[in-house]
């Protein structure tokens, strides 16, 4: 890769990040239009993209980013009010910017003039064309600030650092501390405040805004704000510069482009003339304002290699530990201690590496407000979002694969769940429907809940549709929960319930399968008239799994612990053979079908009579239960998941493989796949459709 290619690659990565930030900032802006921090953040993102694009020579991206930036600038300098329409325009522009970046990275060509419609709209806000216009630049104002806290400042909970941090969000801040009032050490009261600060802030913020910052942190007599106006390098265009005497800066007074340095004299078309120079300077200013995040960018491939290596290390360590058990006990205490220590380090290392792959679900949640806005516009339903647990962390790959399922579930909830405002009011509900989005960690899994307070699932209709489609028998007895979960059957959510919103060719069956593919589970709970909730349970990571090690004949298998309900040694009187040969086990009055793994997997020497072995009760993804007939339960172990498909192909009933402490390969049982293979189940058609779709995907 030559240098330019590397730069381009870096630009694409950075742009993706900035675009994702931008989306979050715009979403925040839509929520609270007065939020200067979001506006500044959005401006920064667009500005960085513009700078980067200019640097690597993507003129088209740079030009469009410039137009968007100009619009943001007008909002930032309060020439333009933040309203829904302009935020919608910005979101649309963000998408186009995204498309442009994608197109550049894939080498594809976006239709010429795709920007035109946006640029026209942006221009209409400006009153005159922006693209050809040179945003009148002017330096920022210099504001002198003084903080003279009283002695009891700290006792009142004051913290100058917080204040400085607040101020830094408004511009470049320099702080000088005055220690002259500090008493000699013997007289020093450590709880009292003896310091004073003098600050210089280069900012676009009004004095009123700064006063607000101080007012939250100090009493009126503890600070002073003096607006010194333009710094020494005065702007050539004095008509829009703020006079230094004018302390009462009103919102109407224009303080244009805070971030951009004065242009060279006579330079009328900045976007054409030496853009890189100008952008570099602008970025420098921006960087000073941006909060410093100390992180590095690591290629995902490298990361995965590391994850794999650590997996190998854990396996090697397990092998060593197993060898140790073969030695006479107590003979090699040092060795035993060493291996124990090694195993602890290996575990810590593994956790650390996994944590590196983890990301907060924030990136998923941040897209939802926008989705709701779109849905609200399309349906006329009024919506609000309540979310929590945005900081919950989960594997990056899981996050990437969750975006579509979550989008779909929310569409589904709005389209089928939430009623129109009038209908809600007549039912005694608030006119605004609520979508609740919650993430939390529970044990080794992440639970994501998407709930609405709409009408809930119409069980009779759903059931009738399932019967009609031949998915369940007419006379089949089903619990309410089972009925609700029928919506995950293929052909139910897609065929009959198509609408412009949720009927986009993706059914809930696909959603479920995508989640299952991540090792997750999804279910729905509904209360008629009060709403429905989707619950997704997902693994923290895709690389390891907690499993029960079982023996069947001469083979060892792993059953994911997440599926295991209980194990029992069945009594002969509880095992019944049905017509047609299937065995069921009576467990506390419930009949559970038995899966003879030995027979199904063709293992010789496995126990045939369940009373000779053990039955492990497991839960399938649709909430059903089956009993696995096993010879013996060996123990519980964390295993590194290896794909069988790397060198072989997928096997129904097998989720993957792992390598045991003795170096042998053991297969991981896919409980839902097993149940599907047993056939005769209500859900069998789903499994078949799933397998078919999987085949088609390859």
């Amino acid at each position, binding site marked *: 890769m030559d240098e330019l290619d590397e730069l381009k690659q870096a630009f694409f990565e950075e742009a993706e990040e900035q675009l994702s930030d931008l989306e979050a900032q715009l979403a925040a802006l839509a929520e609270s239009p007065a939020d200067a921090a979001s506006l500044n953040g959005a401006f920064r993102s667009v500005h960085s993209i513009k700078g980067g694009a200019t640097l690597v020579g993507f003129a088209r991206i740079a030009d469009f980013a410039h137009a968007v930036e100009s619009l943001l600038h007008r909002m930032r300098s309060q020439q333009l009010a933040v309203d829904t329409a302009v935020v919608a325009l910005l979101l649309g522009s963000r998408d186009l910017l995204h498309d442009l970046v994608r197109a550049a990275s894939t080498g594809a060509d976006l239709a010429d003039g795709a920007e035109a419609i946006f640029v026209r709209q942006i221009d209409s806000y400006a009153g005159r064309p922006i693209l050809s216009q040179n945003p009148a630049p002017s330096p920022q104002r210099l504001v002198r600030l003084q903080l003279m806290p009283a002695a009891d400042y700290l006792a009142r909970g004051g913290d100058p650092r917080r204040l400085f941090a607040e101020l830094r969000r408004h511009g470049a801040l320099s702080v000088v501390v005055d220690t002259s009032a500090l008493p000699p050490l013997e007289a020093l009261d450590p709880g009292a405040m003896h310091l004073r600060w003098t600050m210089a802030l280069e900012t676009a913020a009004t004095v009123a805004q700064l006063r607000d910052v101080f007012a939250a942190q100090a009493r009126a007599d503890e600070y002073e704000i003096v607006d010194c106006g333009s710094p020494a390098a005065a702007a050539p265009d004095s008509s829009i510069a703020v006079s230094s005497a004018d302390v009462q800066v009103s919102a109407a007074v224009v303080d244009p482009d805070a971030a951009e340095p004065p242009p060279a004299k006579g330079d009328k078309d900045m976007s054409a003339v030496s853009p890189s120079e100008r952008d570099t300077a602008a970025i420098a200013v921006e960087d000073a304002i941006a909060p410093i995040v100390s992180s590095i960018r690591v290629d995902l491939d490298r990361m995965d290699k590391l994850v*794999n290596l650590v*997996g*190998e290390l854990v*396996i090697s360590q397990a092998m060593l530990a197993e060898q140790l058990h073969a030695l006479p006990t107590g003979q090699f205490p040092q060795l035993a201690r060493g291996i124990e220590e090694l195993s602890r380090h290996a575990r810590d290392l593994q956790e650390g590496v996994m944590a590196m792959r983890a990301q907060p679900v924030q990136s998923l949640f941040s897209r939802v407000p926008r989705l709701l806005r779109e849905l609200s516009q399309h349906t006329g339903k009024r919506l609000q979002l309540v979310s929590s647990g945005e900081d919950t962390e989960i594997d990056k790959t899981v996050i990437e694969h969750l975006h579509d399922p979550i989008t779909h579930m929310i569409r589904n909830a709005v389209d089928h769940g939430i009623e129109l405002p009038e209908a809600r009011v007549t039912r005694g509900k608030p006119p605004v429907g609520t979508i609740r989005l919650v993430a939390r960690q529970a044990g080794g899994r992440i639970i994501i809940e998407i709930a609405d307070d709409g009408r809930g699932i119409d069980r009779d209709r759903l059931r009738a549709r399932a019967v009609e489609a031949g998915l369940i028998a007419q006379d089949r007895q089903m619990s309410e929960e089972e009925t609700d979960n029928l919506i995950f059957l293929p052909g139910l959510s897609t065929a009959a319930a198509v609408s412009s919103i949720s009927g986009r060719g993706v059914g809930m069956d696909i959603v479920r399968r995508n989640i299952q593919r991540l090792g997750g589970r999804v279910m729905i709970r509904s209360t008629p008239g009060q709403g429905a909730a989707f619950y997704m349970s997902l693994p923290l990571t895709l690389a390891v799994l907690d499993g029960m090690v079982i023996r069947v004949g001469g*083979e*060892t298998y792993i059953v994911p612990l997440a599926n295991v309900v209980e194990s029992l040694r069945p009594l002969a009187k509880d095992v019944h053979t049905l017509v047609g040969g299937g065995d069921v086990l009576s467990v506390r009055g419930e009949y559970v079908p038995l899966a003879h793994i030995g027979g*199904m*997997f*063709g*293992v010789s020497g496995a126990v045939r009579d369940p009373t000779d072995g053990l039955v492990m009760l497991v839960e399938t993804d649709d909430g059903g239960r089956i009993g696995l007939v096993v010879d013996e339960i060996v123990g519980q172990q964390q295993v590194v998941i*290896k*794909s*069988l498909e*790397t*060198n*072989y*192909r*997928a*096997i*129904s*009933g*097998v989720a993957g*493989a792992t*390598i045991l402490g003795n*170096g*042998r*390969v*053991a*297969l991981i049982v896919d409980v839902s796949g097993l149940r599907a293979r047993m056939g005769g189940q209500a859900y069998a058609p789903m499994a078949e459709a799933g397998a078919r779709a999987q*085949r088609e995907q*390859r």
Partner: protein
Amino acid sequence: MMPENRFSTSPLDPLTRRSDGENVQTRQLVCFTIGDQTYGIEIRTVREIRAWSATTSLPNAPDFVRGVTNLRGTVVPILDLRARFGHGQTEPTKAHVVIVVAIESRVVGILVDTVSDILTVAETEIRPVPEIGGAAAQEYLDGLITQGDQMIALVAADRIVAPVLVH
């Protein structure tokens, strides 16, 4: 993947100077036996040769898939070539050998009786497989080579392995 044309001139093929001074394309083969028959496999597809070790059997696999084994942390399927040729399963012992081959991006082990030799043959020595005995010979073999009084059958590794890569 299209079977490689055995008369093609690949830049990777070594050139051997014949006694009459002419350069000819040659191929290196790993030779192995199953029963009395000697076979050859293109050395470029061979990753390593290891002794047989017990495998973990796979459910619902054809009889020629002996299961999977751990190759330094990678799960690799093992093909029983005798069974693949339709001559029944091998009863593997520690003396049996697994030839690990890489086909496209897949790594597969092939169980054979013994590995006998590494042979360099000229392209011109490779004879086409005559059309007899149904399609089997055509499907599994790329050509025939005469060495002294024995015939070496050049196996088509990609086509041998193909069934396990089907989804």
